[in-house]
């Protein structure tokens, strides 16, 4: 099976200097579940952003679905890979939760009935029904985290990158999220889970990567 996401000799430095990633080679299949672990500041978020195209590698190449990722627009990459930001606030733009979840579906041409149906499904799955008309910025951290995930899962991407999705969740919500990810996995959708929680990583992922000193261990 060919790799869905492939990194070839990818390095990344900030313009001000400071190399974050060094010669990363990585190959991810579409239905694989991978955990990316590493200390704070080791470059996990940077790696995720390089894959999704929010950052460009200083050298090396990224391939998605066999094509050089440079050839995709940001939107095209977003259709191939769902990306849940580490800071969920960074991805909200609508004035209600319902709209936040339904927005992209509507603009991607889904009929209003189906959008409504999908939104309700997500509100139930992520226990957000009572906040349907709330302004996303007014949610608690855990609720924001769930909304961010709901808005991406609603789009049914073929692969998902989740940047520390368990941060700010209480024990019960962690279990729920775990169930959601298990369900996603059972549907054959793969994910790259950036997380600090070793137990969670080994439970939810078939492969655990460790990022340290700019290199994958």
């Amino acid at each position, binding site marked *: 099976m060919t790799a869905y996401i492939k990194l070839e000799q990818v390095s990344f430095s900030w313009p001000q200097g400071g190399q974050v990633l060094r010669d990363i080679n990585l190959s991810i299949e579409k239905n694989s579940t991978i955990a990316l672990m590493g200390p704070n500041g080791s470059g996990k978020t940077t790696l995720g952003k390089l894959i999704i195209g929010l950052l460009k590698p200083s050298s090396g190449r990224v391939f998605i679905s066999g094509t050089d990722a440079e050839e995709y627009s940001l939107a095209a990459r977003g259709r191939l890979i769902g990306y849940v*930001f580490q800071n969920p606030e960074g991805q909200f733009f609508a004035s209600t939760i319902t709209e936040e979840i339904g927005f992209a579906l509507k603009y991607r041409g889904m009929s209003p009935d189906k959008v409504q149906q999908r939104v309700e499904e997500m509100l139930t799955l992520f226990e957000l029904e009572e906040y349907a008309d709330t302004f996303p*910025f007014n949610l608690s951290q855990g609720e924001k985290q769930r909304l961010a995930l709901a808005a991406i899962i609603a789009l049914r991407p073929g692969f998902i990158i989740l940047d520390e999705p368990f941060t700010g969740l209480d024990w019960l919500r962690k279990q729920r999220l775990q169930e959601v990810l298990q369900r996603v996995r059972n549907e054959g959708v793969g994910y790259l889970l950036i997380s600090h929680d070793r137990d969670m990583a080994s439970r939810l992922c078939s492969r655990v990567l460790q990022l340290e000193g700019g290199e994958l261990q």
Partner: protein
Amino acid sequence: MKGRPEFPDVRTLFTAVLIITSLAIAINDYLWLLILLAITLASLLIAGIHLTRLLRRLRRYRWLFLLIALAQSISNGSGTVFLEFQGYVLLSSGGLLGALAALLRITVILAAVGLLSLKDYQQMVTGLAQMGVPYEFAFMVLLAVRFIPVLMEEFRNSLAAIELRGIELKAIPLGQRLKVYSYLLMPTTAGALIRSRRIAIAMEARAFRAYPRRTWLQWPSLTGWDWFIIALSLGFGAGVLYFKIRGVIA
């Protein structure tokens, strides 16, 4: 504490920038706008500021340019008419010249503001206070100015977040796209409000304004060169305005 005078002083820069931008707004004469641009660019080069930064800024505002040029071109229907639609003049020689003047004007203003990059934020607050502006006021104004790039960054991030949901913004018709842009103002303003609330609390916690007087890290004085540039700017500004009022310059 008295600081070592360092040419140019913030007040000198403020005076020069204020006069250049005022003239850029007041004057309609191409030749004089060009002279103004030449003077400003020369000052930037003498001050050792790279013009690439100005170019980058110009490129960032290219849509605004286009919009202003378009508005000018449509509202000014004088001269030879090139394009007409149901009795409305869309493009004319007068309109084109008007658009050109508008572009020149904005370029001069952006270039002049670039001169301020010689000074940091603290120096500017001090400079304003030395000119008699109340400290709190100076502080607030500069805080606001400093956040503009942050807000723009935030705007771009939200734009990326929308595109990452698989929406091809370029493919959406303009009317709907404007609606999407209006969506983006939401997180940008919400973010700004949240941040300003945090800053206000942090400042109170550090006893901002708890005492009627404050100590300044530096209180630089003006050099002879500063006085010379200030006098030159004032003289030049007054001279040009005089000719404008007399009708010698458009």
